[in-house]
Protein backbone atom coordinates (compact mmCIF):
# COMPACT_ATOMS: atom_id res chain seq x y z
CA UNK A 1 0.00 0.00 0.00
CA UNK A 2 2.73 2.37 0.98
CA UNK A 3 4.78 1.32 -1.96
CA UNK A 4 1.84 2.06 -4.18
CA UNK A 5 1.50 5.53 -2.72
CA UNK A 6 5.21 6.09 -3.17
CA UNK A 7 4.99 4.92 -6.73
CA UNK A 8 2.11 7.22 -7.40
CA UNK A 9 3.87 10.17 -5.88
CA UNK A 10 6.94 9.49 -7.96
CA UNK A 11 4.75 9.25 -11.02
CA UNK A 12 3.08 12.54 -10.18
CA UNK A 13 6.45 14.17 -9.76
CA UNK A 14 7.56 12.77 -13.08
CA UNK A 15 4.48 14.06 -14.88
CA UNK A 16 4.93 17.49 -13.37
CA UNK A 17 8.59 17.53 -14.33
CA UNK A 18 7.85 16.53 -17.90
CA UNK A 19 5.10 19.14 -18.16
CA UNK A 20 7.41 21.86 -16.84
CA UNK A 21 10.15 20.77 -19.21
CA UNK A 22 7.76 20.87 -22.16
CA UNK A 23 6.51 24.30 -21.19
CA UNK A 24 10.05 25.58 -20.81
CA UNK A 25 10.87 24.26 -24.26
CA UNK A 26 7.89 26.10 -25.73
CA UNK A 27 8.79 29.31 -23.93
CA UNK A 28 12.41 28.96 -25.05
CA UNK A 29 11.43 28.40 -28.67
CA UNK A 30 9.25 31.45 -28.72
CA UNK A 31 11.79 33.42 -26.74
CA UNK A 32 14.28 32.60 -29.47
CA UNK A 33 11.81 33.80 -32.09
CA UNK A 34 11.11 37.10 -30.41
CA UNK A 35 14.75 37.55 -29.44
CA UNK A 36 15.95 36.97 -32.97
CA UNK A 37 13.54 39.53 -34.37
CA UNK A 38 14.27 42.08 -31.67
CA UNK A 39 18.04 41.74 -31.70
CA UNK A 40 18.47 41.74 -35.45
CA UNK A 41 15.50 43.81 -36.47
CA UNK A 42 14.97 46.55 -33.92
CA UNK A 43 18.04 48.52 -34.94
CA UNK A 44 16.64 49.35 -38.35
CA UNK A 45 13.25 50.54 -37.23
CA UNK A 46 13.08 54.29 -37.44
CA UNK A 47 11.03 57.09 -38.86
CA UNK A 48 13.01 56.98 -42.08
CA UNK A 49 12.57 53.23 -42.40
CA UNK A 50 8.81 53.66 -42.31
CA UNK A 51 8.60 56.29 -45.00
CA UNK A 52 11.49 55.70 -47.37
CA UNK A 53 11.18 53.63 -50.48
CA UNK A 54 13.08 50.32 -50.50
CA UNK A 55 16.33 50.39 -52.44
CA UNK A 56 18.50 47.68 -53.81
CA UNK A 57 15.77 45.03 -53.63
CA UNK A 58 15.06 46.00 -50.02
CA UNK A 59 18.64 45.65 -48.74
CA UNK A 60 18.60 49.33 -47.91
CA UNK A 61 16.05 52.10 -47.80
CA UNK A 62 12.77 51.55 -45.99
CA UNK A 63 9.30 50.20 -46.51
CA UNK A 64 7.46 53.38 -47.54
CA UNK A 65 5.34 52.17 -50.42
CA UNK A 66 4.92 48.79 -48.79
CA UNK A 67 3.30 50.17 -45.65
CA UNK A 68 0.93 52.19 -47.80
CA UNK A 69 0.09 49.16 -49.94
CA UNK A 70 -0.55 47.10 -46.80
CA UNK A 71 -2.89 49.75 -45.46
CA UNK A 72 -4.74 49.98 -48.75
CA UNK A 73 -5.14 46.21 -48.97
CA UNK A 74 -6.56 46.00 -45.46
CA UNK A 75 -8.85 48.97 -46.06
CA UNK A 76 -10.13 47.43 -49.28
CA UNK A 77 -10.75 44.11 -47.58
CA UNK A 78 -12.64 45.78 -44.73
CA UNK A 79 -14.66 47.94 -47.07
CA UNK A 80 -15.69 44.91 -49.07
CA UNK A 81 -16.26 42.45 -46.26
CA UNK A 82 -17.72 44.39 -43.33
CA UNK A 83 -21.03 45.50 -44.90
CA UNK A 84 -21.64 42.09 -46.38
CA UNK A 85 -20.76 40.25 -43.18
CA UNK A 86 -22.87 42.57 -41.06
CA UNK A 87 -25.93 42.04 -43.20
CA UNK A 88 -25.38 38.28 -43.36
CA UNK A 89 -25.07 38.21 -39.57
CA UNK A 90 -28.35 40.13 -39.31
CA UNK A 91 -29.94 37.47 -41.43
CA UNK A 92 -28.67 34.77 -39.10
CA UNK A 93 -29.86 36.77 -36.11
CA UNK A 94 -33.36 37.19 -37.53
CA UNK A 95 -33.59 33.53 -38.35
CA UNK A 96 -33.01 32.78 -34.69
CA UNK A 97 -35.98 34.92 -33.66
CA UNK A 98 -39.01 33.15 -32.22
CA UNK A 99 -41.33 34.12 -35.04
CA UNK A 100 -38.97 32.86 -37.77
CA UNK A 101 -40.21 29.85 -39.69
CA UNK A 102 -38.65 26.43 -39.59
CA UNK A 103 -37.35 26.61 -43.13
CA UNK A 104 -35.57 29.82 -42.33
CA UNK A 105 -33.98 28.38 -39.22
CA UNK A 106 -32.71 25.44 -41.23
CA UNK A 107 -31.32 27.76 -43.84
CA UNK A 108 -29.51 29.70 -41.15
CA UNK A 109 -28.03 26.52 -39.70
CA UNK A 110 -26.82 25.50 -43.15
CA UNK A 111 -25.34 28.95 -43.70
CA UNK A 112 -23.47 28.76 -40.39
CA UNK A 113 -21.99 25.44 -41.40
CA UNK A 114 -21.00 26.74 -44.83
CA UNK A 115 -19.34 29.74 -43.22
CA UNK A 116 -17.39 27.46 -40.92
CA UNK A 117 -16.17 25.50 -43.92
CA UNK A 118 -15.22 28.58 -45.93
CA UNK A 119 -13.52 30.01 -42.87
CA UNK A 120 -11.26 26.96 -42.68
CA UNK A 121 -10.24 26.97 -46.35
CA UNK A 122 -6.47 27.50 -46.65
CA UNK A 123 -5.56 31.00 -47.70
CA UNK A 124 -3.57 29.81 -50.69
CA UNK A 125 -6.78 28.36 -52.11
CA UNK A 126 -8.28 31.83 -51.86
CA UNK A 127 -5.19 33.00 -53.68
CA UNK A 128 -5.91 30.60 -56.53
CA UNK A 129 -9.53 31.68 -56.59
CA UNK A 130 -8.64 35.37 -56.57
CA UNK A 131 -6.07 34.87 -59.29
CA UNK A 132 -8.58 33.09 -61.52
CA UNK A 133 -11.53 35.37 -60.80
CA UNK A 134 -10.20 38.86 -60.13
CA UNK A 135 -6.86 38.88 -61.95
CA UNK A 136 -7.88 36.91 -65.02
CA UNK A 137 -11.68 36.78 -65.43
CA UNK A 138 -12.22 40.38 -64.29
CA UNK A 139 -9.04 41.51 -65.98
CA UNK A 140 -7.72 43.47 -63.00
CA UNK A 141 -4.32 41.85 -63.33
CA UNK A 142 -2.11 41.60 -60.28
CA UNK A 143 -3.25 44.65 -58.40
CA UNK A 144 -4.19 46.10 -55.05
CA UNK A 145 -7.81 45.81 -56.10
CA UNK A 146 -7.56 42.09 -56.83
CA UNK A 147 -5.61 41.49 -53.61
CA UNK A 148 -8.10 43.49 -51.54
CA UNK A 149 -11.04 41.67 -53.08
CA UNK A 150 -9.41 38.30 -52.37
CA UNK A 151 -8.78 39.31 -48.77
CA UNK A 152 -12.39 40.47 -48.53
CA UNK A 153 -13.60 37.04 -49.66
CA UNK A 154 -11.41 35.47 -47.02
CA UNK A 155 -12.70 37.75 -44.31
CA UNK A 156 -16.43 37.44 -45.03
CA UNK A 157 -16.89 34.08 -43.26
CA UNK A 158 -14.67 35.02 -40.30
CA UNK A 159 -16.40 38.35 -39.85
CA UNK A 160 -19.90 36.90 -40.25
CA UNK A 161 -19.20 34.30 -37.58
CA UNK A 162 -17.81 36.96 -35.24
CA UNK A 163 -20.68 39.36 -35.91
CA UNK A 164 -23.21 36.59 -35.47
CA UNK A 165 -21.81 35.86 -32.04
CA UNK A 166 -21.83 39.55 -31.19
CA UNK A 167 -25.48 39.98 -32.13
CA UNK A 168 -26.43 37.03 -29.97
CA UNK A 169 -25.29 38.99 -26.95
CA UNK A 170 -28.61 40.83 -26.80
CA UNK A 171 -30.72 39.15 -24.07
CA UNK A 172 -33.81 37.33 -25.31
CA UNK A 173 -35.96 39.03 -22.68
CA UNK A 174 -35.16 42.49 -24.02
CA UNK A 175 -35.89 41.37 -27.54
CA UNK A 176 -39.20 39.93 -26.40
CA UNK A 177 -40.01 43.19 -24.67
CA UNK A 178 -39.21 45.08 -27.86
CA UNK A 179 -41.41 42.75 -29.85
CA UNK A 180 -44.22 43.21 -27.33
CA UNK A 181 -43.96 46.97 -27.75
CA UNK A 182 -44.30 46.45 -31.52
CA UNK A 183 -40.83 47.86 -32.23
CA UNK A 184 -39.92 47.69 -35.87
CA UNK A 185 -36.96 45.47 -36.73
CA UNK A 186 -34.80 48.47 -37.38
CA UNK A 187 -35.75 49.98 -34.05
CA UNK A 188 -35.07 46.73 -32.21
CA UNK A 189 -31.71 46.59 -33.84
CA UNK A 190 -30.92 50.19 -33.03
CA UNK A 191 -32.16 50.29 -29.43
CA UNK A 192 -31.91 46.72 -28.18
CA UNK A 193 -29.36 44.70 -30.13
CA UNK A 194 -26.62 47.15 -30.99
CA UNK A 195 -26.07 48.55 -27.49
CA UNK A 196 -25.22 45.03 -26.35
CA UNK A 197 -23.41 43.95 -29.46
CA UNK A 198 -21.26 46.80 -30.64
CA UNK A 199 -18.13 46.22 -28.54
CA UNK A 200 -17.94 42.68 -29.85
CA UNK A 201 -18.72 43.80 -33.39
CA UNK A 202 -15.81 46.16 -33.18
CA UNK A 203 -13.54 43.53 -31.70
CA UNK A 204 -14.47 41.12 -34.48
CA UNK A 205 -13.60 43.67 -37.12
CA UNK A 206 -10.30 44.56 -35.48
CA UNK A 207 -9.28 40.92 -35.20
CA UNK A 208 -10.09 40.51 -38.89
CA UNK A 209 -7.72 43.39 -39.60
CA UNK A 210 -4.97 41.60 -37.74
CA UNK A 211 -5.67 38.47 -39.71
CA UNK A 212 -5.58 40.36 -43.02
CA UNK A 213 -2.30 42.03 -42.06
CA UNK A 214 -0.69 38.68 -41.43
CA UNK A 215 -1.89 37.17 -44.69
CA UNK A 216 0.69 36.31 -47.34
CA UNK A 217 -0.32 33.30 -49.38
CA UNK A 218 -3.56 34.80 -50.69
CA UNK A 219 -1.74 37.93 -51.86
CA UNK A 220 1.15 36.26 -53.62
CA UNK A 221 -0.81 35.63 -56.81
CA UNK A 222 -3.28 38.47 -56.54
CA UNK A 223 -1.46 41.68 -55.64
CA UNK A 224 1.97 40.71 -56.95
CA UNK A 225 5.21 41.93 -55.46
CA UNK A 226 6.21 45.20 -57.03
CA UNK A 227 7.95 47.04 -54.19
CA UNK A 228 7.04 50.58 -55.17
CA UNK A 229 4.61 53.19 -53.99
CA UNK A 230 1.24 52.41 -55.58
CA UNK A 231 -0.46 55.27 -57.37
CA UNK A 232 -3.72 53.59 -58.28
CA UNK A 233 -5.77 50.65 -57.15
CA UNK A 234 -4.85 48.78 -60.30
CA UNK A 235 -1.16 48.95 -59.51
CA UNK A 236 0.60 45.87 -58.30
CA UNK A 237 2.14 46.38 -54.86
CA UNK A 238 3.41 44.15 -52.11
CA UNK A 239 2.17 43.97 -48.55
CA UNK A 240 4.52 43.90 -45.59
CA UNK A 241 4.09 40.14 -45.25
CA UNK A 242 4.99 39.55 -48.90
CA UNK A 243 8.01 41.81 -48.37
CA UNK A 244 9.21 39.59 -45.52
CA UNK A 245 8.75 36.56 -47.76
CA UNK A 246 10.66 38.09 -50.65
CA UNK A 247 13.54 39.28 -48.45
CA UNK A 248 13.78 35.91 -46.75
CA UNK A 249 13.63 33.86 -49.94
CA UNK A 250 15.02 35.94 -52.76
CA UNK A 251 17.47 38.47 -51.41
CA UNK A 252 20.96 37.36 -50.49
CA UNK A 253 21.96 39.27 -47.37
CA UNK A 254 18.34 40.27 -46.82
CA UNK A 255 18.00 38.64 -43.39
CA UNK A 256 18.59 41.71 -41.29
CA UNK A 257 16.04 43.65 -43.30
CA UNK A 258 13.65 40.71 -43.23
CA UNK A 259 13.96 40.80 -39.43
CA UNK A 260 13.02 44.48 -39.35
CA UNK A 261 10.07 43.99 -41.64
CA UNK A 262 8.95 40.90 -39.71
CA UNK A 263 9.29 42.77 -36.43
CA UNK A 264 7.27 45.66 -37.78
CA UNK A 265 4.58 43.28 -38.99
CA UNK A 266 4.49 41.47 -35.67
CA UNK A 267 4.31 44.73 -33.73
CA UNK A 268 1.42 45.92 -35.87
CA UNK A 269 -0.52 42.69 -35.48
CA UNK A 270 0.09 42.43 -31.75
CA UNK A 271 -0.66 46.10 -31.15
CA UNK A 272 -3.95 45.81 -33.00
CA UNK A 273 -4.98 42.68 -31.11
CA UNK A 274 -3.93 44.13 -27.79
CA UNK A 275 -5.82 47.33 -28.52
CA UNK A 276 -8.95 45.34 -29.34
CA UNK A 277 -8.65 43.32 -26.13
CA UNK A 278 -7.88 46.33 -24.02
CA UNK A 279 -10.79 48.31 -25.41
CA UNK A 280 -13.11 45.38 -24.87
CA UNK A 281 -12.01 44.93 -21.27
CA UNK A 282 -12.44 48.62 -20.63
CA UNK A 283 -15.91 48.65 -22.13
CA UNK A 284 -16.88 45.67 -20.07
CA UNK A 285 -15.65 47.30 -16.88
CA UNK A 286 -17.59 50.42 -17.73
CA UNK A 287 -20.69 48.41 -18.49
CA UNK A 288 -20.29 46.55 -15.22
CA UNK A 289 -20.35 49.72 -13.16
Amino acid at each position, binding site marked *: MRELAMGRRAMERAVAAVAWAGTLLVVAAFGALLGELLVRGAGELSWRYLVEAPRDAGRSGGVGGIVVATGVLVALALAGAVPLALLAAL*FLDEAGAAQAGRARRR*LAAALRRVLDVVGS*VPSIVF*GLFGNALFCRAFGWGESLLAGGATLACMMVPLL*TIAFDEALQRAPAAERAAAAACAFS*RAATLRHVVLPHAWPLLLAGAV*LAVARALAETAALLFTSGYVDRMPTSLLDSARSLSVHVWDLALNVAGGEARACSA*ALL*LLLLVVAIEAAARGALAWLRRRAGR
Partner: protein
Amino acid sequence: MPSPRRLDRALQLASAAAAAAALLLLLGLAAFLLRESAPALREVGLVRLVGDRGWHPTRGAFGMAPLVAASGAVALGALTLALPLALAVAFVRLAYAPPRLAALLRALLQLLAAVPSVVLGFFGLVTVVPLLLAIEPPGASLLAGMVVLALMVLPTLALLIEGALAGLPSGERAAAAALGLARTTVLLHLALPRARGAIGAALLVALGRALGETMAVVLVTGNVVQWPSALLAPVRTLTANLALELPYASGLHRSALFVAGLLLLGATAALLLIASRCGARERWRGAREESARA
Protein backbone atom coordinates in the same frame (compact mmCIF):
# COMPACT_ATOMS: atom_id res chain seq x y z
CA MET B 1 -37.15 59.52 -43.42
CA PRO B 2 -38.60 56.29 -44.79
CA SER B 3 -41.43 54.67 -42.86
CA PRO B 4 -40.35 52.04 -40.31
CA ARG B 5 -42.06 49.35 -42.33
CA ARG B 6 -40.17 50.24 -45.50
CA LEU B 7 -36.90 50.38 -43.64
CA ASP B 8 -37.60 46.95 -42.20
CA ARG B 9 -38.39 45.57 -45.59
CA ALA B 10 -35.19 46.99 -47.07
CA LEU B 11 -33.14 45.68 -44.18
CA GLN B 12 -34.66 42.25 -44.56
CA LEU B 13 -34.02 42.15 -48.29
CA ALA B 14 -30.47 43.38 -47.91
CA SER B 15 -29.64 40.89 -45.18
CA ALA B 16 -31.15 38.03 -47.16
CA ALA B 17 -29.13 39.12 -50.18
CA ALA B 18 -25.96 39.26 -48.10
CA ALA B 19 -26.64 35.81 -46.71
CA ALA B 20 -27.15 34.53 -50.21
CA ALA B 21 -23.89 36.18 -51.27
CA ALA B 22 -22.06 34.50 -48.41
CA LEU B 23 -23.49 31.15 -49.49
CA LEU B 24 -22.52 31.92 -53.06
CA LEU B 25 -18.96 32.53 -51.93
CA LEU B 26 -18.42 28.85 -51.16
CA LEU B 27 -20.26 27.75 -54.27
CA GLY B 28 -18.31 30.27 -56.33
CA LEU B 29 -15.04 29.16 -54.80
CA ALA B 30 -15.72 25.52 -55.56
CA ALA B 31 -17.18 26.30 -58.98
CA PHE B 32 -14.20 28.37 -60.03
CA LEU B 33 -11.68 25.83 -58.83
CA LEU B 34 -13.63 23.15 -60.67
CA ARG B 35 -13.86 25.19 -63.84
CA GLU B 36 -10.14 25.90 -63.83
CA SER B 37 -9.21 22.34 -63.03
CA ALA B 38 -11.60 20.83 -65.58
CA PRO B 39 -9.03 20.60 -68.41
CA ALA B 40 -6.60 18.65 -66.25
CA LEU B 41 -9.30 16.39 -64.87
CA ARG B 42 -10.59 15.72 -68.37
CA GLU B 43 -7.36 15.40 -70.34
CA VAL B 44 -5.01 14.03 -67.71
CA GLY B 45 -7.52 12.23 -65.55
CA LEU B 46 -7.42 11.25 -61.92
CA VAL B 47 -5.51 8.05 -62.57
CA ARG B 48 -2.53 9.85 -64.02
CA LEU B 49 -2.75 12.70 -61.50
CA VAL B 50 -2.16 10.10 -58.83
CA GLY B 51 -0.13 7.51 -60.66
CA ASP B 52 2.27 9.35 -62.99
CA ARG B 53 5.90 8.89 -62.15
CA GLY B 54 7.02 12.18 -60.76
CA TRP B 55 5.80 15.74 -61.10
CA HIS B 56 7.15 17.17 -64.36
CA PRO B 57 4.10 19.03 -65.59
CA THR B 58 5.92 20.73 -68.46
CA ARG B 59 6.80 17.32 -69.84
CA GLY B 60 3.46 15.66 -69.26
CA ALA B 61 4.08 13.85 -65.96
CA PHE B 62 1.48 14.88 -63.39
CA GLY B 63 2.08 12.53 -60.47
CA MET B 64 0.87 14.51 -57.45
CA ALA B 65 1.13 11.63 -55.01
CA PRO B 66 4.55 12.64 -53.58
CA LEU B 67 3.24 16.16 -52.99
CA VAL B 68 0.19 14.85 -51.19
CA ALA B 69 2.32 12.47 -49.13
CA ALA B 70 4.69 15.31 -48.22
CA SER B 71 1.78 17.53 -47.14
CA GLY B 72 0.42 14.73 -44.98
CA ALA B 73 3.81 13.89 -43.50
CA VAL B 74 4.65 17.49 -42.60
CA ALA B 75 1.24 18.14 -41.07
CA LEU B 76 1.03 14.87 -39.11
CA GLY B 77 4.62 15.25 -37.97
CA ALA B 78 3.87 18.75 -36.77
CA LEU B 79 0.93 17.49 -34.72
CA THR B 80 3.04 14.71 -33.25
CA LEU B 81 5.51 17.32 -32.04
CA ALA B 82 2.88 19.83 -30.96
CA LEU B 83 0.49 17.58 -29.05
CA PRO B 84 2.78 16.60 -26.13
CA LEU B 85 4.02 20.16 -25.82
CA ALA B 86 0.48 21.56 -25.88
CA LEU B 87 -0.53 19.03 -23.21
CA ALA B 88 2.47 20.04 -21.14
CA VAL B 89 1.60 23.72 -21.32
CA ALA B 90 -2.06 22.98 -20.51
CA PHE B 91 -1.04 20.86 -17.47
CA VAL B 92 1.31 23.51 -16.21
CA ARG B 93 -1.28 26.23 -16.57
CA LEU B 94 -4.05 24.21 -14.95
CA ALA B 95 -2.19 22.48 -12.16
CA TYR B 96 1.35 23.60 -11.46
CA ALA B 97 1.93 27.24 -12.22
CA PRO B 98 1.08 29.94 -9.67
CA PRO B 99 -1.75 32.18 -10.94
CA ARG B 100 0.54 35.03 -12.01
CA LEU B 101 2.76 32.77 -14.06
CA ALA B 102 -0.27 31.04 -15.54
CA ALA B 103 -1.65 34.38 -16.68
CA LEU B 104 1.73 35.27 -18.16
CA LEU B 105 1.83 31.98 -20.02
CA ARG B 106 -1.60 32.66 -21.39
CA ALA B 107 -0.56 36.08 -22.62
CA LEU B 108 2.45 34.47 -24.27
CA LEU B 109 0.28 31.89 -25.99
CA GLN B 110 -2.01 34.61 -27.28
CA LEU B 111 0.94 36.59 -28.56
CA LEU B 112 2.25 33.53 -30.34
CA ALA B 113 -1.09 32.70 -31.87
CA ALA B 114 -0.91 36.11 -33.50
CA VAL B 115 2.51 35.64 -35.11
CA PRO B 116 2.04 35.73 -38.89
CA SER B 117 2.97 32.42 -40.50
CA VAL B 118 5.46 34.06 -42.85
CA VAL B 119 7.34 35.32 -39.80
CA LEU B 120 7.42 31.81 -38.36
CA GLY B 121 8.71 30.49 -41.67
CA PHE B 122 11.40 33.14 -41.73
CA PHE B 123 12.39 32.22 -38.19
CA GLY B 124 12.62 28.59 -39.28
CA LEU B 125 14.79 29.60 -42.22
CA VAL B 126 17.32 31.49 -40.13
CA THR B 127 17.45 29.25 -37.05
CA VAL B 128 15.97 25.79 -37.56
CA VAL B 129 17.43 25.19 -41.03
CA PRO B 130 21.03 26.09 -40.15
CA LEU B 131 20.72 23.92 -37.02
CA LEU B 132 19.67 20.92 -39.10
CA LEU B 133 22.25 21.79 -41.75
CA ALA B 134 24.92 21.24 -39.14
CA ILE B 135 23.58 17.73 -38.56
CA GLU B 136 23.05 16.75 -42.15
CA PRO B 137 22.77 18.89 -45.29
CA PRO B 138 20.73 20.44 -46.85
CA GLY B 139 18.95 21.40 -43.61
CA ALA B 140 15.81 22.52 -45.38
CA SER B 141 13.83 19.35 -44.85
CA LEU B 142 10.72 17.54 -43.72
CA LEU B 143 11.79 17.92 -40.10
CA ALA B 144 12.30 21.68 -40.46
CA GLY B 145 8.76 21.96 -41.83
CA MET B 146 7.41 19.87 -38.98
CA VAL B 147 9.09 22.00 -36.34
CA VAL B 148 7.88 25.27 -37.83
CA LEU B 149 4.32 24.03 -38.28
CA ALA B 150 4.35 22.62 -34.74
CA LEU B 151 5.23 26.10 -33.46
CA MET B 152 2.40 27.49 -35.56
CA VAL B 153 -0.39 25.23 -34.28
CA LEU B 154 0.91 24.95 -30.73
CA PRO B 155 -0.63 28.06 -29.11
CA THR B 156 -4.16 27.40 -30.33
CA LEU B 157 -3.88 23.71 -29.63
CA ALA B 158 -2.72 24.39 -26.07
CA LEU B 159 -5.60 26.82 -25.44
CA LEU B 160 -8.09 24.32 -26.86
CA ILE B 161 -6.76 21.40 -24.85
CA GLU B 162 -6.79 23.49 -21.72
CA GLY B 163 -10.41 24.38 -22.38
CA ALA B 164 -11.25 20.71 -22.79
CA LEU B 165 -9.38 19.67 -19.63
CA ALA B 166 -10.91 22.42 -17.53
CA GLY B 167 -14.39 21.27 -18.41
CA LEU B 168 -14.57 18.78 -15.53
CA PRO B 169 -18.00 18.90 -13.83
CA SER B 170 -17.83 20.57 -10.42
CA GLY B 171 -19.29 17.52 -8.71
CA GLU B 172 -16.41 15.34 -9.83
CA ARG B 173 -13.97 18.04 -8.94
CA ALA B 174 -15.40 18.20 -5.44
CA ALA B 175 -15.33 14.43 -5.13
CA ALA B 176 -11.69 14.37 -6.20
CA ALA B 177 -10.86 17.08 -3.67
CA ALA B 178 -12.66 15.12 -0.94
CA LEU B 179 -10.58 12.07 -1.76
CA GLY B 180 -7.43 14.17 -1.49
CA LEU B 181 -6.34 13.35 -5.01
CA ALA B 182 -3.37 15.23 -6.34
CA ARG B 183 -4.01 17.62 -9.18
CA THR B 184 -1.88 15.49 -11.47
CA THR B 185 -4.05 12.48 -10.73
CA VAL B 186 -7.24 14.46 -11.36
CA LEU B 187 -5.93 15.69 -14.68
CA LEU B 188 -4.51 12.38 -15.76
CA HIS B 189 -7.29 10.03 -14.66
CA LEU B 190 -10.42 12.17 -14.61
CA ALA B 191 -10.09 15.12 -16.96
CA LEU B 192 -7.98 13.56 -19.70
CA PRO B 193 -10.20 10.53 -20.44
CA ARG B 194 -13.24 12.80 -20.45
CA ALA B 195 -11.61 15.31 -22.82
CA ARG B 196 -10.34 12.73 -25.26
CA GLY B 197 -13.04 13.45 -27.84
CA ALA B 198 -12.59 17.18 -27.65
CA ILE B 199 -8.82 16.86 -27.91
CA GLY B 200 -9.24 14.66 -30.96
CA ALA B 201 -11.46 17.25 -32.55
CA ALA B 202 -8.97 20.00 -31.73
CA LEU B 203 -6.26 17.94 -33.39
CA LEU B 204 -8.37 17.59 -36.53
CA VAL B 205 -8.84 21.33 -36.74
CA ALA B 206 -5.14 21.88 -36.17
CA LEU B 207 -4.40 19.29 -38.86
CA GLY B 208 -6.54 21.29 -41.28
CA ARG B 209 -4.56 24.41 -40.54
CA ALA B 210 -1.23 22.63 -40.87
CA LEU B 211 -2.21 21.05 -44.18
CA GLY B 212 -3.26 24.37 -45.63
CA GLU B 213 -0.26 26.39 -44.48
CA THR B 214 1.96 27.68 -47.26
CA MET B 215 4.37 30.38 -46.20
CA ALA B 216 5.81 28.69 -43.15
CA VAL B 217 6.48 25.55 -45.18
CA VAL B 218 7.78 26.86 -48.49
CA LEU B 219 10.63 28.66 -46.74
CA VAL B 220 12.00 25.65 -44.90
CA THR B 221 11.30 22.34 -46.63
CA GLY B 222 13.72 22.52 -49.57
CA ASN B 223 10.98 21.97 -52.11
CA VAL B 224 12.35 18.93 -53.90
CA VAL B 225 9.49 16.82 -55.27
CA GLN B 226 10.04 13.40 -53.75
CA TRP B 227 8.42 10.92 -51.41
CA PRO B 228 9.04 11.80 -47.78
CA SER B 229 11.52 9.06 -46.95
CA ALA B 230 13.69 10.55 -44.22
CA LEU B 231 13.22 13.28 -41.65
CA LEU B 232 16.22 15.23 -42.91
CA ALA B 233 15.40 14.89 -46.60
CA PRO B 234 13.80 17.81 -48.44
CA VAL B 235 10.19 17.55 -49.59
CA ARG B 236 7.67 19.73 -51.37
CA THR B 237 4.12 20.05 -50.10
CA LEU B 238 1.01 20.70 -52.20
CA THR B 239 0.78 24.24 -50.92
CA ALA B 240 4.46 25.00 -51.50
CA ASN B 241 4.08 23.66 -55.01
CA LEU B 242 1.28 26.13 -55.64
CA ALA B 243 3.31 29.03 -54.33
CA LEU B 244 6.30 28.08 -56.48
CA GLU B 245 4.61 27.21 -59.73
CA LEU B 246 1.39 29.15 -60.10
CA PRO B 247 3.14 32.38 -61.17
CA TYR B 248 4.36 30.85 -64.42
CA ALA B 249 2.17 27.81 -65.00
CA SER B 250 -0.01 27.78 -68.08
CA GLY B 251 -2.28 25.35 -69.87
CA LEU B 252 -2.64 21.90 -68.35
CA HIS B 253 0.03 22.66 -65.78
CA ARG B 254 -1.99 25.56 -64.39
CA SER B 255 -5.09 23.44 -64.47
CA ALA B 256 -3.35 20.65 -62.56
CA LEU B 257 -2.40 23.20 -59.89
CA PHE B 258 -6.06 24.06 -59.51
CA VAL B 259 -6.76 20.37 -58.98
CA ALA B 260 -4.36 20.62 -56.06
CA GLY B 261 -6.35 23.61 -54.80
CA LEU B 262 -9.55 21.63 -55.07
CA LEU B 263 -7.92 18.81 -53.14
CA LEU B 264 -6.90 21.19 -50.35
CA LEU B 265 -10.39 22.66 -50.23
CA GLY B 266 -11.93 19.19 -49.99
CA ALA B 267 -9.48 17.98 -47.36
CA THR B 268 -9.89 20.94 -45.03
CA ALA B 269 -13.66 20.97 -45.43
CA ALA B 270 -13.83 17.24 -44.65
CA LEU B 271 -11.60 17.65 -41.59
CA LEU B 272 -13.74 20.50 -40.32
CA LEU B 273 -16.98 18.59 -40.80
CA ILE B 274 -15.61 15.54 -39.01
CA ALA B 275 -14.34 17.72 -36.21
CA SER B 276 -17.68 19.46 -35.85
CA ARG B 277 -19.29 16.03 -35.57
CA CYS B 278 -17.06 15.48 -32.56
CA GLY B 279 -18.39 18.71 -31.12
CA ALA B 280 -15.24 20.65 -31.74
CA ARG B 281 -16.95 23.53 -33.41
CA GLU B 282 -18.38 24.97 -30.28
CA ARG B 283 -15.18 24.43 -28.36
CA TRP B 284 -13.00 25.80 -31.12
CA ARG B 285 -15.17 28.85 -31.31
CA GLY B 286 -15.22 29.09 -27.57
CA ALA B 287 -11.46 29.10 -27.43
CA ARG B 288 -11.18 31.60 -30.21
CA GLU B 289 -13.61 33.91 -28.56
CA GLU B 290 -11.94 33.51 -25.26
CA SER B 291 -8.50 34.11 -26.65
CA ALA B 292 -9.88 37.20 -28.32
CA ARG B 293 -11.29 38.48 -25.12
CA ALA B 294 -9.31 37.50 -22.10
